[in-house]
């Protein structure tokens, strides 16, 4: 049984055991507009919560994507490089990296869907 959490940097995480699948939410995807490139990390990279691990570029802007949890990147979704349209809030296909977490408690502190939805409403 997996849980899905959200951050106020507009990332989502699907937690399966000790691994977190990380992606970006519809709000973020909309804000970016037409995408031109995604800069992905290498498998094996160690990250600390808050590190930027990927960069997504549109024509006029580039945005870092931050990891909400510390750990090791064990899998990277290379398919996204050539299929930028798949980068969306889909917990099965839209994940960017899978992180083996050092400290599962970091994930527990994040927002659930209803809290995130309220957060987004507050922004608009």
């Amino acid at each position: 049984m997996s849980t899905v959490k959200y951050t106020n940097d507009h990332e989502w995480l699907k937690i399966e055991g000790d691994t977190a699948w990380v992606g970006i939410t519809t709000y973020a995807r909309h804000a970016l507009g037409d995408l031109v490139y995604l800069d992905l990390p290498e498998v094996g990279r160690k990250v600390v919560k808050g590190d930027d691990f990927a960069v997504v570029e549109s024509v006029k802007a580039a945005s870092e994507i931050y990891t909400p949890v510390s750990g090791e990147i064990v899998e990277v979704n290379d398919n996204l490089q050539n299929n930028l349209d798949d980068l969306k809030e889909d917990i099965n296909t839209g994940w960017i990296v899978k992180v083996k977490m050092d400290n599962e408690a970091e994930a527990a502190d994040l927002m659930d869907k209803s809290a995130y939805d309220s957060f987004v409403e507050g922004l608009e």
Partner: protein
Amino acid sequence: MRYLPQTNAARKEMMDSIGVKNVDDLFIQVPKKAFIKGKTNLPDHQGELQIERKMLAYANQNINAQSNRFFLGAGVYYHHVPSSVDYIIQRSEFLTAYTPYQPEIAQGTLQYLFEFQTFIAQLTGQEVANASLYDGATAMAEAALMAMRVTRRNKICFGNDIHPQYCEVTETYLKNNDGNSYTVTEDPSKITDDTACVIIQSPDFYGKPHSYSDWRKACDEKGALLVVVINEIVSLGMLAPPTEADIVCGEAQSIGVAMSYGGPHLGFFACREKFIRQMPGRVCGETVDADGNRGFVLTLSTREQHIRREKATSNICTNQGLCALAFTVHMALLGENGFKQLAVLNHERACELADALIAIDGVSLKNQHFFNELALQLPQGKNAGDIVQQLADDYGIIAGYPADDRTILITATEITTDNGIKALANALQEVL
């Protein structure tokens, strides 16, 4: 004052529209102490005739390459630029245009940048090139920084005799972050897993052409990048292009751009396609417009600092626009055969110069192989700097660059004449 079109009547009308009595009312937020009071030490306005006379007087104090015997190179070269180049670059639409951020009304600039990038890629044997950088020295520094970004390492290796100023500039850029460092070694086996890149200059600072297979092997073993620096781009008309390199950069001033006491010059930067998103500087790309017709735009600008801010790949805002145009026009005039022939003429003059110089007692050439620059070794007891000064003072000859106490770098290009070579050889004979 000839550059100020506003009339007093118009000024008054405008102030009325704004609702102020005099122009100082518009400066009310400026603290009083910051206003200039009374006269400064600066003169008032002058007409063209007065200024021309004054500046001509300054210019006439300088020994220039056009009217005197000239053999100085060391990274900046005196070549002949065909007349058409200067007329093209002085066209208003090129000279007074801005950076092509509104591409619909800047297709002229964008198309020549595309042609420039193509020429650079073709000359260097690389896949892509940018729209130019400030000069060769900063191009090399940018190459080092890029290699560090790509490899995530922070050590640079200078692998042969590179122009000292280029090394200084690279060191200045490296110093800004602790943890960066550089080593100097000519031994490929000395590079390590911490090495981001090896930098090789060819021809090197003493004029010797190099090849790269040993360095390429060493870089492949250690995962480092190979950077080749070229500061006499005419050499690519005879020497093999550095296709083994990951980055080729340097100075393109030799084509189209005057020496102008050090600037503006023309840095160039080319690399493998897989690195384009890490390449610094402006880049022009081909696309289509709303009617499906071909057009050009600045692209990949998300790497630049006005968008990435703290995370920018470098802080270069500018390319050398008009200098890049001068290069492109000159290259277009030279073409395949002209460029190769230009290189051969340079080399032949250097061969003739070499023969004339080594006929002098006591001198020798440091390198038996060269393109157009010779490293002349003086006899014991003679100081290169003093000799160069003496040749300038007593003979009016700009003889070369004192690379160290006993070595003068002496260059020949297509402008070097038989009489010039004789004059230099005779003068040297006399002072030594």
